[in-house]
């Protein structure tokens, strides 16, 4: 009878430990998933920021302040394919 009781307690403890461990791991995985989402969102925000800051809409006024200009078409050379330098 005592052996049965001890066996029951051991098995029950193992089951509870296994479930607790699973829950802890699931919680950890959920945290990692959330972290991935956070970092992806941050990556997207930074990529969009870089795109926006390098657009002509943003650069135009700065370029204007620096006194830069659009080159004349005479200053642009279009090189045909296959032309050797």
């Amino acid at each position, binding site marked *: 009878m005592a052996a049965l009781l001890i066996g029951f307690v051991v098995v029950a403890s193992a089951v509870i430990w296994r479930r607790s461990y699973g829950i802890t791991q699931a919680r950890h995985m959920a945290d990692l998933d959330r972290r991935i989402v956070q970092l992806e*969102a941050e990556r997207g925000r930074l990529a969009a920021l870089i795109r926006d800051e390098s657009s002509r809409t943003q650069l135009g006024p700065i370029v*204007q302040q620096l006194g830069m200009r*659009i*080159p004349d078409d005479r200053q642009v050379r279009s*090189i*045909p394919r296959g032309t050797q330098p």
Partner: protein
Amino acid sequence: MKAPGRLTIVHGVLVVFALALIAKAGYEQLFRSDYWSKIGQRQHYVSSGLPAPRGQILDATGRPLVESREMVRISVAPRQVRNRAALARDLKLASVDPRFVSMSLDTMRKWVDVPGAFLPNSVAPAIALRGVYSKPVMDRVYATSGGIRRIVGRVGPDGKALDGIELALDSLLRGDTATVRVARDKSGRPLAAPDDADDPTPGSTVVLTINRELQEICDRALAVAVDSLHADGGDIVVMNPNTGDILAMASNRADPAAVANTAVTEPYEPGSTMKPFVAARLLQLGRATPDQTVDTYGGHLTINGRTITDADEHPSVLSLTDVIKHSSNVGIVRFADRMSVREKYEMLRDMGFGTQTTVALPAESPGVVRDPSGWTPQSAASVVMGYEVSVTPLQMVTAYSAIANGGELLVPHIVKEIRAADGTVRYTAQRQVVRRVMTPEVATEVRTMLRDVVAGGTSTRADLATLDVAGKSGTALRNAHGRYIAGSYTASFVGLFPDDKPQFVILVKLDNPQMGFYGGIVAGGVTNVVLRAALAARDAALNRGELASSVHAPRPDTTPAGKAAERARLASEKRIDSADVADSLRELAHAPPVDSDPRTSESYVVTLPSKTRAIPPVVSPRAVPDVSGLPLRSAVRALHAAGFRVQLVQGAALPLVPVAGTMLEAGRVVKLGIAH
């Protein structure tokens, strides 16, 4: 018989009660197990929707124009909050409206939905607190360019597409939301298990024909033009005439609340840009040749009680080519008399006016082409001058593309490709011909006429020095509530670039510009700026190899307008693009229309700017360093490091001129004396 004692009765009742309990338990277990099992599942598990990321929208080169990112909406149950100070701090850090921070701490409220979506990072500390609940939502990140936003449209806060490509292709972009069943922990929070979730199906990726760099060039040029010319607004559309690809589509309105893509939604009366189609149809029908002439009666003609006049001075007898070159209203009306009313109407319909182009953008206007049964006696003359007909900028560019590509009217398209989330190509745009509207020979003849317009006609401002541009300007009175408004014009120019093998058909339209109104001057000027910027850009959808064959040596332009354009161009070499555009346009807007008569050209005095001078850098004076006692090499190095130029002087009276400590601007020469 002895009556049972009270204890026996109590025991009996307890036994009966126990038996009843066992019976009830047995009944529930044996006969209602399914019911209780469902209740248990419902309490332990919760169904949660996983939002599908909307598909990306890319430009033709694969750069993202719009993409999705996961954001978080938060709600607070104030009565469950334990750490109120931390919640207040975390919500403030996440830039939550202070009113809602107060509401979130008010225990009189059961539930508070905080408005707006937040970056997961910014609200992560708040979400970790008891009483704060979060829900993931997908947010769209748009490119800054206003023009691109008008094309791609918007998605509302509830995730529903509102306009643009987002609306037109919503079913493809939105993807499929997944529903997952997740276990809940003791506090009711979802506990994700690794194997119980089906990922949502992301939306398809839409690749547009838009070239982002060219689009930004057009956006910027248009914004500067609208601002500097004090126009009500404007549109620019650039199309590849050989494929029907829309490469750029910019719209701008002075009213910042206007967000519609007016290049497809807002028709306008095109004015003289309609004339080349009349010429093409006359040539096609064999009713005229480019060299045939008509008398324009000095630029005044009265028909049915209405006097038609020409804006520009020109010889009275004009060939069809010259009618286009000088944009003679009288000339085109006289030539168009060779067509019947029905033929004029068919010409308009054949060019695609009065019907939608079927481009994948919502709210496209078909324009207005009235049936001949509704024409007045003056309509036949009006339509060939571009009045009593309304077209969208996209329709006009599509029609000019037919002239550019040898006579085929194409279906314009803005969607190049659609790819499913797994990379499978679901749609690829194909060149689609609506109909042939002129023979290649007629198209070539009309292109030659359009080349003359830019080379020496009304639109020399659009021309480039080393590449030829063909095109036609239009200056049309604007109509409001059925009446034409004096002094209010739509200035437009449609260009083919380069003229021999066009890669771009570009339309520039400015609504009611106040600082000049001639289409060839103001819209032609903007065209010139866009083309120059496109040539200078790294990738603006130009085939450089093919372009190289069209380049010729720079050609001096001796016409007054040519000189003015040259002056503006030279001025541009020392000015920035937008300032240059603005100044050149202002200057040219006040110039009279082009006149090729050599007698009048003598009255112009054109002052070319002096040699380009670089803007001197702003330098602050600094002290000349003390180099006494230093070896010569170190002394020179120290002076250079201080920003001065050094001149060595043998046998100088002073070792350093000026002396150490003198305040001098950087770049000035300092004389360093050396012994014999």
